């Protein structure tokens, strides 16, 4: 049986990726800070990988937040992500793992690019709001390329749009736009508040991928893609933050109104992924989940877990303040 270790496997994406591999019959182990391994340090990670001896390492670990978090902690975001990637690739090589899977956010594409085509990945600067998060992932691609040249280490590099779904961060600082919207709107409804503030103009266009679809695509690409050049996974369709807010309002059955705070940054104006290479490479595979249906499921999950999340968020921010 093929063995997979999911690094960052306790996180939002990592948990779902672990399930997707299990469904396909892989033996899956999860490695994360919650399982006691700090991937910024090579020795404990290498010892773990030698013990577990997997065929594949999927790197989903990240120190991640939204653009507000990146602005608040740029050094920690850059350093942690750089070190985790650097260590993970080296440890995978030293443990003779056959395949390394690097998961990359689409914010690594040039900030001014409208349609994210794989061939244009290096053709312009990243948007400053995501630079410290994105650069370590691009550096990791170069590292993996160098490793393939010199030592023959095999790796694939998958670029994904913003993800959403059950289990997302709902922490007000760290969540992505969709998670933050769901939290704000559901909380407003529960508290009887009839106004919700949204950061930015509401015009920014983003592509959203349901996390289970992302995990499914990652597992499939791991099985059938073998080239070092990056491969996009996504739906190839976008939606404005404003439209997204409307969908959440309907899903949460809330009657209030939105106030767009244009003092806050929008981030890049538009991010849509070109999925032509994906369609050709993965035999016509595409994400199955409709945005409205995915949002409804995410709202349900949040409503059920709201109390626990509020507690955890408070604890996290208290810990961060120390």
């Amino acid at each position: 049986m093929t063995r997979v270790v999911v690094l960052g496997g306790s996180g939002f994406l990592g948990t779902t990726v672990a399930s997707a591999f299990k469904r396909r019959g892989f033996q899956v182990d999860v490695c994360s800070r919650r399982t006691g391994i700090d991937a910024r340090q090579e020795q404990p990670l290498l010892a773990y990988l030698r013990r577990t001896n997997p065929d594949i390492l999927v790197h989903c670990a990240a120190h991640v937040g939204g653009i507000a978090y990146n602005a608040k902690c740029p050094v920690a975001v850059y350093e942690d992500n750089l070190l985790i990637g650097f260590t993970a690739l080296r440890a995978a090589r030293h443990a003779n793992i056959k395949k390394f899977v690097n998961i990359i956010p689409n914010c690594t594409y040039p900030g001014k690019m409208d349609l994210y085509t794989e061939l244009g990945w290096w053709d312009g600067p990243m948007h400053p709001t995501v630079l410290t998060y994105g650069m370590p992932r691009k550096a990791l691609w170069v590292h993996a390329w160098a490793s393939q040249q010199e030592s023959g280490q095999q790796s694939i590099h998958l670029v994904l749009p913003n993800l959403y779904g059950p289990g997302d961060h709902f922490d007000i600082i760290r969540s992505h736009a969709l998670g933050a919207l769901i939290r704000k709107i559901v909380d407003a409804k529960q508290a009887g508040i009839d106004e919700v503030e949204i950061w930015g103009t509401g015009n920014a266009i983003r592509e959203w991928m349901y996390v289970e679809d992302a995990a499914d695509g990652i597992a499939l690409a791991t099985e059938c893609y073998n080239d070092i050049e990056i491969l996009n996974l996504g739906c190839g369709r976008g939606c404005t933050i404003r439209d997204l807010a409307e969908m959440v309002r309907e899903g949460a059955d809330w009657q209030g109104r939105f106030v767009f705070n244009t003092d806050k940054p929008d981030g890049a104006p538009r991010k849509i992924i070109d999925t032509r290479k994906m369609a050709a490479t993965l035999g016509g595979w595409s994400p199955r989940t409709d945005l409205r249906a995915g949002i409804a499921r995410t709202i349900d999950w949040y409503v059920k877990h709201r109390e626990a999340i509020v507690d955890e968020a408070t604890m996290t921010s208290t810990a961060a303040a120390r």
Partner: protein
Amino acid sequence: MEKIVILGGNGFLGTHVSRAFTGRGYEVHVCSRSNGVDARKDGALAAFLEKVNPAILINCAQHGGGISYNAEHPLDIYEDNLMIGFQAIRAVAQAGVKLFVNIMGNTTYPGVANIYRESEWWNGPLHPSVMATELPRKAQWVHSWAYRQQGCGFRSIHLVLPNMFGPGDHLDPSQSHALTALIRKIWEAKRSGSKRVEIWGSGKPIREWLYVEDAAEGIVRAAGEFEGIEILNLGSGQGCSVRELAETIRELLDWPGEFFYDTARPDGALCKIFDVSKMKAALDWTPPTELRDGIRKTIDWFVGTQHATAAAH
């Protein structure tokens, strides 16, 4: 007396940078593996900086070599350069160093760029032959930028330099710059009485050459006067064809032979030169050494080393 630490201070450029800062009254400390500091190791450089307590750290360290070495060892090169830069910036922050100077080569620009303009630094992929060496330099820029966004004290400048030449270049032909390699070829032809030197390509491609002492002076000036975190080109902005270079060296060495241009070899890009308008505005300076004078000094130095080697035998 203000102190300065130079990473890679024993290298070709580092030696000249060290001399230039000493000339301005700085106490210069060279930090390299030969004096026991492995900058790749977590905390090693920070401990060194805390001991010396310099105002400035300059990173001239570069694990790299000629094209064939780079092609064979991209992984070692990438990992060493990435970790040296990463630890250097962390150490600067930790030890309270006021200024970090990142020295970069023109190959940090996109492989297809012909005029190197600062505003276009990110606009394309690096050439594969230099990706492992140069991506870490660009990562250092992002890392420094992150500290600045965080509002943590130190200032950093990021200087991009063209090909350099001058006294003290590597003598090993596989490591030396093209200009020094050409001097060697012609000098060896003269010594052996050969009337023919082969040059790869048509001789037409135009490249920019910076005399190493000018480079060091430019770095000193930028360290004193340039405030921005955005990259700054240091160069003459003037190019010279391989053919002109070869002719100048022939004249100065007084060699009576002929060049044979092997046009079966690829030329690469026709022209690669710097846009130095930002440098002129920011530093009110241009490199003073005429190419011909610089080549003469380099030849004097080179011939001197060969005579010294011959005398030693």
